[in-house]
């Protein structure tokens, strides 16, 4: 088969799998698992084959007219454009999706809604692959929105809990808030560039021979940035991502760590010339990235829910990628995207095992259990590896990709644009202020990242107190997936030498200055947290029982006695989510004095735990006015409109009652009236005839 055919099959197979899963899931439960795993797995293999055949050479394109639009010059085409970025991201998506599907067969094996879940994950995978391969902005938008709706359904998978319902709605609304400007931006870009083909736009903008320029690059870039911020959870539209952790853990791994949130970054990388055409857009991008990085790292340090820590860290790592794009180095951005996708998926999947083993998702509760690491050794070791990668400790994958980002920022600061950015950015320069912003925020975030990774590791696996409850061993399939993902987490960074061939050719090798600085900061962060934890909190934790932490001690999850309701390794994650708020009075934070983050952050802790009150700001700015308007409309509807409606109805009722009195049922009365009427008519006719 030609590479083109294979490339078409890559998004098509999961889509067919999803359709088949949705149609047959209920009737043929035996086929659900193969239908979920096999198409995705095949698609991943094909993606690898496509990537190997493409091999970073000239981009492979193909197009078929999908539908004409009103403007003949602007057709919508079913086009794909396979360059190094696309094929590598597709490999990432395929591999992570396969891992998640396999993991889900174990994780959700008792879930009655597994068929629809698996089909939605397949559909989501297909949409993401469509986004990755598509060369047409409108087709890309279709995949983009399909991902949004799949995300909505999957976040709301545990719709029995109010948290999941609220989170799915929030995810949907917040991303849509970004998608509306995104759509406008896509249309504006298409009409200004005269085509919806991304490759054509990029070629026209980047080629030194053409003098083509966008008329309003800043407006278009900012409109597109709104959609990207929504999808990639960048400030200020990131608030949906931590709440989206109410979904199942595999969903968090697939959607909210590895793929969907990466779609925004990938989109900017594809259209980077549009952004570099506007200096203002690059500065905004840098500012957004910096705020997102630092803020989310601080918030991650204060979270109590394991998954929310990881969610905020995702937001922060995406900030790194956006930062790389702000300094116009898309190679570094996509490199970090790929490595982050792998180790964050691993982190989430390991966290799923951990939550099941501990019976809770609260770090405060885990820090009072000992021996959790022994219960789930596979999760312990893989999570350690992934946390090291997250903290950018050499030689793990995260180190190299993060150093590539920081190196790109350093390039932007130190000198004229050379090297990686020159290839794509063309004549447009990267402002030094953007470079400085990204570099400083990146270094600060490196420190904070190491700190919260250390805190997570110490609290989760080195707790002291009662023995962790024995809830059975996780299924082997889940452990296997963890180790499969651990491989690239350790080794993927070494690809930095080979990757530039796939990308724009700029070097991705770590530079000495930033490497030493960042690694030093990471080590410092780890040591600080460890010291605080060791000397202060470890003792405090022993003194402060869990009951003192809980807002409602009666409802405290009792780790020592799992009770007969959890006899095996199937503690529902939904229980863990549902109990957290009831126990600690807050979905995000636990009021635990033994938490090292409390000492480190001091007064900042309270704000960081609540995501710096951004939700409150949203409530004040958007929710309350909307509610007030809704109340006004309701009042108008009830008191004004309904008055007319009721009046109309009441009049008809009165008339009906009057007429009804005549309906006595007495045939003689009817006949009498009838004859009297005909008599009147007859008399009238006679009088008229006589008078005429």
């Amino acid at each position, binding site marked *: 088969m030609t590479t083109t055919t294979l490339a078409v099959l890559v998004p098509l197979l999961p889509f067919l799998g999803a359709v088949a899963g949705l149609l047959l899931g209920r009737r043929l439960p035996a086929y659900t698992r193969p239908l979920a795993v096999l198409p995705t797995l095949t698609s991943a293999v094909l993606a690898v084959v496509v990537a190997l055949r493409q091999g970073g050479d000239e981009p492979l394109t193909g197009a078929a007219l999908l539908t004409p639009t009103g403007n003949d010059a602007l057709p919508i085409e079913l086009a794909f454009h396979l360059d190094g970025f696309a094929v590598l991201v597709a490999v990432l998506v395929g591999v992570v999706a396969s891992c998640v599907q396999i993991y889900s067969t174990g994780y959700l094996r008792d879930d009655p809604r597994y068929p629809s879940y698996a089909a939605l994950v397949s559909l989501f995978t297909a949409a993401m692959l469509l986004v990755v391969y598509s060369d047409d902005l409108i087709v890309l938008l279709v995949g983009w929105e399909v991902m949004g709706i799949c995300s909505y359904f999957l976040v709301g998978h545990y719709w029995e809990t109010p948290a999941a319902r609220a989170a799915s709605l929030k995810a949907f609304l917040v991303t849509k808030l970004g998608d509306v400007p995104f759509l406008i931006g896509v249309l504006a870009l298409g009409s200004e560039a005269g085509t919806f083909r991304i490759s054509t736009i990029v070629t026209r903008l980047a080629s030194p021979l053409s003098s083509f320029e966008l008329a309003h690059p800043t407006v278009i870039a900012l409109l597109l940035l709104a959609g990207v911020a929504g999808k990639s959870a960048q400030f200020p539209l990131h608030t949906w991502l931590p709440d989206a952790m109410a979904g199942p853990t595999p969903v968090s791994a697939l959607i909210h760590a590895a793929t969907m949130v990466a779609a925004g970054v990938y989109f900017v990388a594809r259209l980077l010339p549009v952004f570099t055409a506007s200096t203002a857009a690059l500065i905004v991008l840098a500012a957004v990235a910096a705020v997102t990085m630092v803020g989310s790292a601080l918030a991650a340090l204060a979270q109590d829910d394991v998954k929310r820590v990881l969610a905020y860290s995702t937001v922060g790592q995406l900030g790194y990628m956006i930062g790389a794009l702000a300094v116009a180095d898309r190679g570094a951005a996509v490199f970090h995207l790929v490595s982050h996708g792998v180790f964050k998926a691993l982190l989430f999947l390991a966290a799923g095992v951990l939550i099941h083993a501990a019976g809770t998702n609260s770090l405060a509760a885990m820090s009072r259990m000992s021996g959790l690491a022994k219960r789930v050794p596979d999760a312990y070791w893989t999570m350690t590896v992934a946390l090291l990668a997250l903290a950018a400790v050499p030689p793990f994958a995260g180190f190299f990709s993060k150093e590539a980002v920081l190196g790109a920022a350093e390039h932007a600061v130190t000198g004229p644009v050379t090297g990686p950015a020159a290839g794509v950015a063309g004549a447009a320069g990267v402002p030094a202020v953007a470079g400085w912003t990204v570099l400083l925020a990146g270094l600060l975030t490196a420190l904070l990242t190491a700190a919260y990774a250390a805190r997570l590791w110490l609290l989760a696996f080195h707790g002291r107190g009662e023995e962790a409850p024995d809830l059975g061993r996780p299924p082997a399939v889940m452990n296997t997936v963890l180790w499969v993902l651990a491989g690239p987490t350790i080794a993927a960074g070494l690809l930095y030498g080979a990757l530039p061939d796939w990308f724009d050719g700029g070097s991705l090798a770590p530079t000495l200055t930033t490497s030493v600085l960042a690694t030093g900061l990471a080590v410092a962060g780890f040591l600080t947290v460890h010291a605080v934890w060791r000397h202060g909190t470890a003792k405090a934790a022993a003194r402060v029982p869990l009951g003192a932490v809980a807002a409602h001690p009666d409802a405290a999850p009792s780790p020592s006695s799992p009770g007969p309701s959890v006899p095996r390794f199937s503690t529902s994650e939904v229980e863990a989510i549902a109990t957290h708020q009831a126990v600690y009075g807050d979905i995000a934070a636990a009021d635990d004095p033994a938490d090292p983050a409390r000492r480190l952050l001091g007064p900042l802790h309270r704000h960081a735990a609540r995501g710096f009150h951004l939700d409150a700001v949203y409530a004040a700015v958007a929710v309350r006015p909307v509610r007030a308007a809704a109340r006004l409309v309701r009042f108008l509807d009830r008191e004004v409109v309904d008055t007319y409606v009721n009046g109309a109805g009441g009049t008809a009722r009165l008339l009906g009652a009057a007429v009804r009195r005549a309906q006595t049922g007495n045939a003689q009365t009817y006949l009498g009236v009838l*004859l009297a009427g005909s*008599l009147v008519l007859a008399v009238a006719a006679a009088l008229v005839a006589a008078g005429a």
Partner: protein
Amino acid sequence: MSTAAAARLAADTPGFLSPTGVEVLFLLVGVVTLGAAIVSVTSRRLVHAALWLVVALGGIAVEYLLLSAEFIAWVQVLIYVGSVVVLLLFGLMLTKAPMGRSPDADSGNRPVALAVAVTAAVTLVTVVVDAFHSTWIDLDDGGPQGTTRVTGEILFRHWVLPFEALSLLLLAALVGAIVLSRRKDGRTGGENGGER
């Protein structure tokens, strides 16, 4: 009709003040008929009302005779006086109508009925008199018009098809009446058990 023509017509025809013998007889029988009809619709004894109806229908038969419609007069006597009234009497008996005076023979609709009837009567009589006050029926010349022979000839020469269709109608009515009044088998009659 202009007044002049009306006056000429009135001059041609005999006046109302000098009635012929047939006219006198017609009037007398008509008064009796009308009186019997009025008693029939106002009587509080239901059986008496039916019997007064016999008088009214018989009076109409006499009027037919006076109008020289001989065959119709006998048909009237045979069918109406002979069978219809008998049927009505049976109906009264089968529905257990009270034999004596029943104070509730008239419904509450009576004032309306009276008003409608009187108004209709006034209107109709006014119109009819106004239209036909000078029309004269010549009963004498041209021979009898309603003898059995004449009626038979026109009936079976010109009206055969409607006549046969009517036989079908009668058959249908017969079947319908039987179907309607037939008592279902296996059904208890309740308090009506002995009515047939």
